[in-house]
């Protein structure tokens, strides 16, 4: 048994089997995967997936022991040996739930799907269980598929630590814990196992979210809500109603659940949506797109292992194509920044990652400023049109250049004009409709307006659009209907939505955008005038 000092929980106790896992290269890799992308705004937020995984392990052990109290009254058909086995597997799942995370966490995640086109098959090959395969490939998998990092974590864990598992059913349960794929069986035993799975992987509240909400707030210094972990975990219970068995919380935990949702809301609203953080995320994504294009196999499963993989590199350098090979293993954040620094030093956008002097700045600096400039003057319809236009433009220009380049400048303008010609040609051939053909003209209108804005304000015609999600509270999530609160003194349980007096956010437009540009010495941007120019464009007739 080891005890590790933790600023949030005091001490985290780790049993000998877990210590052996933690000491491996695969787990130690997590020391080099940042937990959040907040460091550009909050320099102290340097915590990583390593300590977060230990935190989830700690909470998971507490949570499952609380749940086990229910089994003393009613075993639900489990023997003691069976229960011990599932508890052990659940604890390992908590420890290893992020072991396959991509560099820079969620920023790099989608590249897993591209580099490992058969990620679901890889996962099922590890587990080798028919029932699990049926879940993964079910029709509704299009809407309930596990995230890439979840699948990759299950794959890495099962392949790297085979001694944890005695048979394929063990692997199945473990994989379900990490991916969140429920059994959804009528069998009571499986319903109980689904309750255990949801302790780690749930859409509303689970031990993973609990740790990162608390840890993120503490490292940032944004402690706006007190979360009583002990009260929450001690309230975990199994609720039986309408022939169903659900994971629920005692009424005493209701206030803490609300606080967790408040805390997560605060993080989403004031931190995740901050333009500085969004812009840095944008730069990193651009960097990773460049790397992914030139470094085949960097985001494959093999690159995450200790054995690693030979990565072929093919990129343009001073007008010639360079071919090279490198061996990459246990790929982490530092590999990405190394490659960005040395192989893409001439990329202007990537250059902004390493030097703030060269960085663009947002014209409006928060969702609140955006709303002040645009919401009150435009009706709902015009506002939706504006937001949709810029969101579409952001995505349209990504695909235009031979090399990824999300910048709006003269070169982009020329490429969009070329696209307009190609659209018209295809329309003449009957391959697309006139309605589709007209869509490009809209992009040209906005690009030319931005050119005009640059000219009138004496700044370079060089913009980056970053779309941001407007804040929506976790209190209006549809899944809140599925979270039950138990009132044992009343002998009943109810969905949290029916018993909590929380205010729900009003239904509103869902996305807005930031516009970034270079500052020019001596030039003070007239933000209101720029917003007026954009708004005016919405009312011009074509």
């Amino acid at each position, binding site marked *: 048994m080891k005890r590790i000092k933790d600023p949030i929980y005091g001490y985290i106790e780790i049993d000998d089997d877990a210590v052996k896992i933690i000491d491996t290269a695969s787990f130690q890799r997590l020391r080099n995967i940042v937990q959040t992308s907040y460091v550009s705004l909050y320099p102290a937020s340097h915590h990583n997936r390593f300590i977060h995984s230990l935190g989830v392990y700690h909470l998971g052990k507490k949570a499952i022991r609380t749940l086990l109290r229910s089994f003393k009254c009613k075993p639900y058909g489990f023997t003691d040996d069976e229960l011990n086995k599932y508890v052990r597997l659940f604890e390992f799942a908590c420890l290893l739930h992020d072991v396959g995370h991509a560099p820079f966490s969620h920023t790099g995640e989608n590249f897993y799907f591209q580099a490992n086109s058969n990620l679901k098959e890889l996962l099922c090959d590890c587990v080798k269980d028919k029932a699990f395969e049926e879940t993964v490939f079910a029709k509704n998998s299009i809407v309930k598929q596990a995230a890439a990092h979840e699948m990759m974590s299950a794959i890495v864990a099962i392949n790297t630590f085979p001694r944890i598992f005695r048979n394929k059913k063990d692997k199945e349960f473990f994989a379900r814990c990490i991916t969140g794929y429920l059994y959804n069986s009528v069998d009571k035993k499986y319903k109980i196992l689904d309750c255990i799975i949801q302790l780690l992987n749930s*859409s509303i509240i689970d031990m993973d979210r609990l740790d990162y909400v608390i840890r993120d707030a503490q490292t940032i210094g944004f402690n706006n809500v007190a979360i009583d972990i002990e009260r929450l975990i001690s309230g975990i219970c199994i609720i039986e109603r309408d022939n169903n068995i659900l994971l629920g919380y005692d009424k005493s935990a209701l206030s803490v659940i609300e606080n967790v949702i408040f805390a997560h809301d605060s993080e989403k609203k004031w931190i995740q949506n901050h333009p500085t953080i969004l812009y840095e995320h944008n730069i990193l994504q651009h960097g990773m797109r460049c790397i992914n294009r030139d470094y085949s196999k960097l985001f494959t499963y093999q690159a995450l292992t200790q054995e690693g993989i030979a990565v072929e590199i093919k990129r343009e350098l001073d007008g010639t194509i360079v071919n090279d090979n490198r061996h990459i293993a246990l790929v982490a954040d530092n590999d990405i920044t190394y490659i960005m620094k040395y192989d893409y030093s001439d990329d202007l956008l990537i250059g902004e990652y390493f030097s703030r002097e060269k960085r663009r700045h947002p014209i409006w600096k928060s969702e609140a400023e955006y709303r002040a400039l645009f919401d009150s003057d435009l009706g709902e319809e015009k506002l939706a049109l504006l937001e949709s*236009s810029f969101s579409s433009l952001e995505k349209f220009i990504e*695909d235009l250049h031979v090399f990824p380049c999300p910048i709006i400048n003269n070169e982009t303008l020329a490429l969009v004009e070329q696209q307009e010609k190609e659209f018209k040609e*295809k329309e003449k051939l009957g391959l697309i409709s006139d309605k589709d053909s007209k869509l490009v003209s809209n992009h040209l209108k906005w690009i030319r307006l931005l050119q005009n804005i640059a000219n009138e304000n004496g700044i370079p015609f060089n913009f980056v659009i970053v779309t941001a999600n407007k804040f929506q509270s976790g209190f209006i999530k549809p899944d809140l209907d599925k979270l039950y609160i138990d009132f044992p003194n009343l002998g009943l349980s109810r969905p949290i939505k029916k018993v909590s007096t929380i205010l729900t956010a009003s239904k509103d437009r869902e996305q807005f955008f930031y516009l970034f540009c270079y500052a020019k010495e001596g030039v003070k941007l007239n933000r209101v005038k720029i917003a007026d120019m954009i708004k005016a464009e919405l009312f011009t007739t074509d």
Partner: protein
Amino acid sequence: MCKFIGIEDLAANALIELLDASAPMRKVTFRQLIDYGNVVIKILNDESLSAVAIYSKDRTESLIRNYSDFFDVNFDEETISLCEGKTAEDLRIHFRSMLTIDWLLAFRNKLALKVLGIK
């Protein structure tokens, strides 16, 4: 360069084609979307345009959160429908205008439309 196609992109483009068809439909099944997505991805990859479909519960949550005025997801029937009052033109403006010509042609390819039952 790899493009990530989400469920909202597939649903929107499928529904545009279904609405423009001779027998307009406002609903598409999950099965149809998976098959449509597979064909579109294959067409793009054959054209050396790297594309990946991203289906995940996070993406679905994003669809429901960001586009609930466009789409109604019925998990029991396993369908995605266009909300009342929304038209193909609305879908075009919000979801199709981000497509360059190569991508648009892939979404409108005959093989892809065949999967949706459009001749």
